[in-house]
C-alpha cells in the first residue's frame, strides 16, 4: 500500500449520469443523508415509516435510492432486481444509492461505484451533523504543509575520513564489541543500536557535536556519546569499554545509577532525555517538543494523536503528544495454534502489525471511566483511539513483555514469540488512515493527509536493529542484532558474530528499530563509499 488513494475510473453509466446531472443529485441527496455519531452514514427517506420498494413494497433484500427520482427499489439478486427494472422503464435512472451504507451503486453494472464528489457530499453532511470542535475532518489546507525535507543529519562524505587500512577494512564501518562492565549489557545493547542508527551516527561522525567547542561547564552526555562514536568507528576492532560513558551517564541519572540489573528501554529513554536537556539548556529558543532540534528528537520524535469520542453524540476531543518511541502491549495469540499447519502457514501467531492494530483500535472505556462530553454536558461512555499523526525518521518499538500483577504482587515476563517484518509500511496506523476508516473510507482529505508532492517522507520503513532479552525477569541478558547492508550481525557485549536472516526472524524481540526506507538504503551507500576509498590500501585477508 503506497498511501495514495486510487481514484477509480467511473463506469460508463456513472460517467453518463455525471455529464447530465453534475453535482445536483448529490447535493439534494444531502437532505436524505443521515449521519451517525460513529462516522457511518445511511439514507433516510421517510422518518415515519420503514423503507419499501416502490414496485413491490418489500423491505427485504437490499434497498436502493434512485438518485434521479428519489424512489426506492429493491435488489434481491442479479436476476431479481427491481432497481434494474426501474432503469429499463425510466431511461438513465441507472445510478442509485445503497440505503444502508450510502454507497453509489450502478444498477446496470450491478456493482458498487465510486465518485470523489459523492464522498465529498457525504462528508460535508457528516461534518455539518457532527458536534462542533470535531477536528477529524478538515478541508485540505492549501500549501501550508511545508516541504518536509528528509534530514539525514550529517554529511556522509565525512565518513570517508575515518580510515582503517587493516585487513578487516572490508567489514562494515563501526562494528566493534563493547565490554560488559558488570551487568551493563542493557547499556551495550542500546548503544550498539544507536551507533548504527544512520542519522544519529551521521550527526556524531559528521562532527556536529564538537567536544572541544561544547561548553564543559556542565557535564555533557552528548560529548561522551561523541567519544564513544569516535572510538567505535576508529577502526580498532578490539572490544571497547564504555567506562567514561557509564560514569557520565551515572552522573546525569542519579536515580538510575547503581550496579544492578536495569532495563534497556528505560536506559534508551533516559539517554534521549539527557541529550535533549543539554540542548534545551544551551539553546534559548524552546519551540516545544514537536519541533525540537536536538539530535534525539530530530531522529526519534514523532507525534501521536489521541481521539476520545462520546458514544452518544460523537463529539470528539483530540490531543497530540510527542513521543520518542511506541510501547506496545503484547498481542495474545489464540492458545490453540502456535504450530504451523501443513501448508507452512502460521495460524494464530502474534505479530508486530497485530500489536499495532491493537494499539490503534477504538477502545471502549469502561463504564467506570465515563468522560465528560462537552456537547451532551454529562458524563458519557466514551471511545478512545490512538493513531500516529507524524512518523519519526527512526521508529523504535518497545514490547511490553513485563507483566505486573498488583494483586499477586508478582511480575512475570511474557516470553511469547512475536513475528516482526523486515519491511514495514506504517500507512494503516497513520491518523489520516484511522480517521478515514472511521468515516467509512471516503475519498476525502482527512486531517493528516499530506499530498505526496509536499513531502519526501514516506511511510515505508526498514528494520535495522533488534534488541532481545533472554532469561528471566530478574536475571537475563540483552543482545543486539544489527542489519548492515542486508547482512545481520549479532552484538553480544564483546562478541560480534555474523548470523543468518533466519536466526533473526526466530528471535524473541524486545525492542525493534525501524528507519525510513530511503534512509536505510542511503546508509548502505555511505558504507559502500567507505569501502571504495580503502580498497587500494587493503591487503589480503579479506573477511
Amino acid at each position: 500500500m503506497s498511501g495514495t488513494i486510487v481514484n477509480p475510473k467511473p463506469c460508463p453509466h456513472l460517467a453518463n449520469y455525471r455529464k447530465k446531472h453534475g453535482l445536483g443529485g448529490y447535493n439534494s441527496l444531502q437532505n436524505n443523508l443521515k449521519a451517525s455519531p460513529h462516522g457511518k452514514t445511511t439514507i433516510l427517506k421517510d422518518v415515519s415509516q420503514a423503507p419499501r420498494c416502490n414496485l413491490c413494497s418489500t423491505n427485504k433484500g437490499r434497498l436502493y435510492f434512485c438518485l434521479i427520482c428519489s424512489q426506492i427499489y429493491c435488489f434481491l439478486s442479479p436476476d431479481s432486481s427491481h432497481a434494474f427494472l426501474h432503469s429499463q422503464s425510466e431511461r438513465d435512472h441507472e445510478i442509485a444509492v445503497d440505503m444502508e451504507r450510502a454507497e453509489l451503486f450502478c444498477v446496470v453494472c450491478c456493482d458498487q461505484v465510486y465518485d470523489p464528489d459523492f464522498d465529498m457530499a457525504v462528508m460535508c453532511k457528516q461534518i455539518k451533523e457532527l458536534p462542533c470542535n470535531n477536528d477529524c475532518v478538515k478541508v485540505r489546507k492549501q500549501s501550508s504543509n511545508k516541504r518536509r525535507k528528509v534530514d539525514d543529519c550529517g554529511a556522509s562524505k565525512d565518513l570517508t575520513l575515518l580510515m582503517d587500512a587493516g585487513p578487516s577494512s572490508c567489514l562494515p564501518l563501526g562494528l566493534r564489541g563493547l565490554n560488559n562492565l558488570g551487568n551493563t549489557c542493557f547499556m551495550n545493547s542500546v548503544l550498539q543500536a544507536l551507533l548504527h542508527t544512520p542519522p544519529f551516527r551521521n550527526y556524531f561522525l559528521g562532527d556536529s557535536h564538537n567536544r572541544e567547542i561544547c561548553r564543559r561547564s556542565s557535564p555533557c552526555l552528548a560529548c561522551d556519546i561523541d567519544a564513544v562514536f569516535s572510538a567505535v568507528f576508529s577502526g580498532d576492532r578490539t572490544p571497547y569499554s564504555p567506562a567514561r560513558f557509564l560514569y557520565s551517564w551515572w552522573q546525569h541519572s542519579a536515580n538510575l545509577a547503581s550496579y544492578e540489573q536495569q532495563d534497556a528501554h528505560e536506559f534508551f529513554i533516559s539517554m534521549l532525555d539527557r541529550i535533549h536537556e543539554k540542548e534545551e539548556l544551551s539553546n534559548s529558543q524552546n519551540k516545544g517538543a514537536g519541533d525540537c532540534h536536538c539530535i534525539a528528537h530530530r531522529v526519534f520524535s514523532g507525534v501521536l494523536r489521541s481521539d476520545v469520542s462520546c458514544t452518544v453524540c460523537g463529539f470528539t476531543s483530540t490531543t497530540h503528544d510527542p513521543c520518542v518511541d511506541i510501547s506496545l502491549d503484547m498481542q495474545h495469540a489464540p492458545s490453540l495454534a502456535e504450530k504451523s499447519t501443513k501448508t507452512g502457514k502460521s495460524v494464530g501467531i502474534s505479530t508486530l502489525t497485530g500489536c499495532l492494530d491493537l494499539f490503534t483500535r477504538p477502545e471502549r472505556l469502561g463504564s467506570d471511566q465515563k468522560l465528560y462530553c462537552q456537547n451532551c454536558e454529562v458524563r458519557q461512555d466514551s471511545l478512545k483511539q490512538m493513531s500516529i499523526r507524524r512518523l519519526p525518521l527512526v521508529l523504535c518499538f518497545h514490547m511490553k513483555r513485563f507483566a505486573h500483577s498488583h494483586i499477586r504482587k508478582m511480575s512475570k515476563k511474557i516470553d511469547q514469540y512475536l513475528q516482526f517484518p523486515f519491511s514495514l509500511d506504517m500507512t494503516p496506523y497513520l491518523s489520516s488512515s484511522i480517521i478515514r476508516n472511521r468515516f467509512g473510507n471516503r475519498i476525502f482529505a482527512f486531517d493528516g493527509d499530506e499530498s505526496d508532492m509536499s513531502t519526501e517522507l514516506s511511510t515505508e520503513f526498514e528494520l535495522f536493529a533488534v534488541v532481545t532479552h533472554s532469561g528471566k525477569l530478574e536475571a537475563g541478558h540483552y543482545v543486539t542484532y544489527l542489519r548492515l547492508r542486508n547482512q545481520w550481525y549479532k552484538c553480544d557485549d564483546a562478541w560480534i558474530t555474523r548470523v543468518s536472516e533466519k536466526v533473526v526472524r526466530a528471535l524473541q524481540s524486545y525492542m525493534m528499530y525501524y528507519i525510513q526506507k530511503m534512509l536505510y538504503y542511503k546508509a548502505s551507500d555511505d558504507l559502500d563509499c567507505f569501502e571504495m576509498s580503502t580498497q587500494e590500501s587493503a591487503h589480503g585477508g579479506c573477511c
Partner: protein
Amino acid sequence: MSAPNEEYASPHSQLSSHFFGDLLDSIIVDIASECHRIARLGLDRNLEEEEEELRLSAQARVRVADPSNGGETNGKYVVDIFGQTHPAVANEIFECMNCGRSIMAGRFAPHLEKCMGKGRKARMKATRSSTASQTRHSRGSPISLYSPYSNSNRSNGVDDYCNEGGLDDQ
C-alpha cells in the same frame, strides 16, 4: 435456531430462521461493500507480503529449533568476525575516572558504584550536585520526559496482570 429442514420446523422457528437469514444477508453485504471500497481505492494491505513474512518466520523458527542446524544460535563462540576471542569477564585494565585506581573492565561498574557513592543506599539521599538541578528541568521521572499517552486500564486478559514493559538484565 432450528435446522432449515422445513418438514420438521414449526412455523415459529421457520420465521426465526427467515429473519435470521435476512439479517445475515444484510451483514454479509455490508462487509462485502466495505471490503469492495477498500480494495477499489487501493487501501488494502499487501496480503501477499504479509503472508510471505509469516511463512518465512515460521520456517525460520523451525530451522533454528532444529539442533542439527549447527551452532549459530547457541551461546558458545569460538572466534568473532575479526578472529578474536574474549574472556567471560572483560579483562581490559584502565584507570577509574573518579578515584584514579586501576580497575578491570568487567568489574568496573560495581567498583564505580561504591566509588561514586551511588547505589541503593545513596539513592535515598537527595543529591546536591549540579546534575540534580539539571534533572529538575525534566519531569523528574527517569522513564520518559515525554510520557506519550496514558495507557491506563487496558485489560489484556492476562489474568490480573497489566503490562508496564521494563525488563532487567544481567
